[in-house]
């Protein structure tokens, strides 16, 4: 599709463009700008090309991922709030029926998995599930539709699937990790340190070994949340992009590409809720472990 428009030199440029975030970051004095000029003073700028993004270093913000994340979160909150305000007793219909189904599903998952007492766990699980689900759902939108439309409006880079950005997935995972640490100390106090130090071998001589085993397990938790979601969605998006390349290779490949897109989208419909479900279940289990005091 994009190749037909002639806006990309080759397939590599097309893929690279679709995998580049709109980035806001700090450019140091002396940095080379897109037009070849040199920056005289250090500035925070919205990057205009990948050469500028690459010079921004660690303190760079993926503006597109952040905007889409907030937008999807707002859609979730507004929809559920509106349904909640208009909820009626009796047999639910339409949107209320849909929202009640999701709430009941999450509630039953929390009841089955979480064994402590905390009224916040179900709302956290609901938020995580719906937000990750909506983020993943953005992958179903044709890869060129929104980025190309925005490009016509002057926005050169746009990645619309927040869960294909490791900053977003690991950020969410770190949020869950902080909750875990908070509840571990709240429920167990310094018993949490004792748990780390004396499990699995309950003798002081094994404290360093126990700490090694338990700390690796503790650090693995946010990685298992964030990297799994990122990996699955990034790979899926990559496949969508690769199939989209076929649209620029003649009518035969375009039709074949359309069939492949459809097939992959249908398969992806299963992956989207599954990944959201796994993220939610792991969150509940991790928070449940944080509440277990032996």
């Amino acid at each position, binding site marked *: 599709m994009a190749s037909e428009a002639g806006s990309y030199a080759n397939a590599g440029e097309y893929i690279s463009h679709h995998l580049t975030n709109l980035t806001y970051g700090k450019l140091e004095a002396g940095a080379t700008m897109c037009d070849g000029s040199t920056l005289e003073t250090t500035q925070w700028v919205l990057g205009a090309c990948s050469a500028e993004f690459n010079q921004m270093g660690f303190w760079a913000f993926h503006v597109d991922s952040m905007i889409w994340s907030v937008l999807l979160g707002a859609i979730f909150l507004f929809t559920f709030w509106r349904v909640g305000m208009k909820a009626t007793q009796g047999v639910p219909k339409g949107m209320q029926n849909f929202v009640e189904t999701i709430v009941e599903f999450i509630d039953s998952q929390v009841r089955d998995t979480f064994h402590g007492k905390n009224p916040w766990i179900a709302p956290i699980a609901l938020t995580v599930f719906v937000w990750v689900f909506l983020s993943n759902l953005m992958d179903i939108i044709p890869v060129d539709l929104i980025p190309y439309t925005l490009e016509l409006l002057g926005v050169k880079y746009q990645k619309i699937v927040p869960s294909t950005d490791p900053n977003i997935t690991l950020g969410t995972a770190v949020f869950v990790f902080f909750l875990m640490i908070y509840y571990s100390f709240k429920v167990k106090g310094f018993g949490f340190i004792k748990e780390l130090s004396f499990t699995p071998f309950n003798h002081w001589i094994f404290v360093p070994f126990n700490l090694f*085993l338990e700390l*690796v*397990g503790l650090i*693995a938790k946010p990685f298992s949340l964030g990297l799994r979601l990122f990996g699955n969605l990034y790979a899926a998006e990559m496949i969508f992009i690769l199939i989209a390349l076929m649209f620029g290779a003649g009518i035969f490949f375009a039709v074949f590409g359309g069939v492949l897109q459809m097939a992959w989208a249908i398969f992806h419909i299963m992956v989207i809720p599954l990944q959201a479900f796994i993220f939610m279940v792991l969150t509940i289990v*991790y928070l449940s472990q944080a509440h277990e005091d032996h």
Partner: protein
Amino acid sequence: MVFQQARPKPVPRPSAWRLVTCQAVTALILGLAVAVVIPDVWFEVMLAGALCVVAQSYFTWRSLRHFGSRYTALFVVATSQGLFGKWIILAAGLIPVWVTQPDLNATTMLLVVVVLNTLSAMLAPILVK
């Protein structure tokens, strides 16, 4: 009687430690072979091999820790932790070595990690019983 009462039998815990032993023996053989053929990278092979064995041991222990638990989610989570923990151990072991010891051959170490982990993945269906 149509229905007979049956007591659920516990599923036997799989024996996965043979995999670690196999990996350790392979690392040792690889180290000895390299010591003879390319002695310059002998230390890298042994170091990466030892790290692989530690990481695989962690994975085996962690993933089987909740085996047979009433809450299946615990087993799933433990396996996931084991998997990521294994790679965290490898990354946390290799990266500081590469940064602080630029003289060591990073490619060789990476190759050993890939070979030993691929070997254990291939042998797992045979050795884990």
